[in-house]
């Protein structure tokens, strides 16, 4: 079972206390944006076998949204970090690089 540490309340929460909230770091394209941007914002998602960045919510807990970096193949968790950020923190990226040199995910590497 997946266990993630909530960066807000510090709890090591197992999966049933959490709610998966889809991909992390989406850039919102709202009304007035180009059709292509709006379409990819709504529908196009990464679905990697490997390094992935997700949003989770500590639903049965402090209620906060946070981010998690993990590997979808091995279920290894590289770390969790607050939602108030536009990209993964360097220490988490370094951890991923140590395991998967040359990894990329959207614009991050």
């Amino acid at each position, binding site marked *: 079972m997946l266990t993630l540490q909530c960066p*807000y*309340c*510090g*709890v090591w*929460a*197992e999966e*049933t*206390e959490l709610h998966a909230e889809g991909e992390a770091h989406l850039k919102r394209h709202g009304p007035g944006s180009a059709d292509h941007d709006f379409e990819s914002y709504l529908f196009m998602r990464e679905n990697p076998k490997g390094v992935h960045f997700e949003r989770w919510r500590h*639903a*049965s*807990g*402090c*209620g*906060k949204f946070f981010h998690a970096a993990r590997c979808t193949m091995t279920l290894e968790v590289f770390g969790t970090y607050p939602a108030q950020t536009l990209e993964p923190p360097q220490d988490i990226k370094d951890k991923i690089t140590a395991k998967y040199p040359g990894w990329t995910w959207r614009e991050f590497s």
Partner: protein
Amino acid sequence: MSKAVSALDGATFEGFAKVAETGLRGMITVRGDLASKEMAAAVKATTGAAVPAQRKVVTGDKGAVAWMSPDELLVVVDYDQAEAAVAQMNEALKGSHALVANVSDARAVFRLTGDGNRDVLAKLAPVDFAHEAFGADDIRRSRIAQVPAAVWGNADGSFEVICFRSVAQYVFDVLKVSAEVGGEVNHLG
């Protein structure tokens, strides 16, 4: 005004541990900047307690205050003091970005006493209730079976569970089943 009653009007159950609805209690949700001096002053004036650290409960001479999230506290006072406490906190937090709401009638509280009360909870929540992991004045928001709840430990070894009033009967029922004689685990003691 109509007579206020708690969700289950003090219902009790005696299994290998005892489950009791605790009756009317003043509960106030407070949101805002927990690190601000205005918040510290408001909490102090209302409860006599300091703002708690992460996942802690602090008890003062007039009430208790529990850490619910990085921007949320639960203030517990006597039921008939709740409205006055809300007014007092609103006054102390005037000008700050904060919210104070009386949720006394929207919540239910259960107390678990007796040997094995940790096991009663451990069967229902994905939380480590071992003595060294969860003690007095610790609070943990989690779920009880299928509904959200918060649990805190008291100095006398009892635990209290707070849930939404709308699921009070459900929580009482699952606590009862978990505490039934014959269902002892004798694991956490």
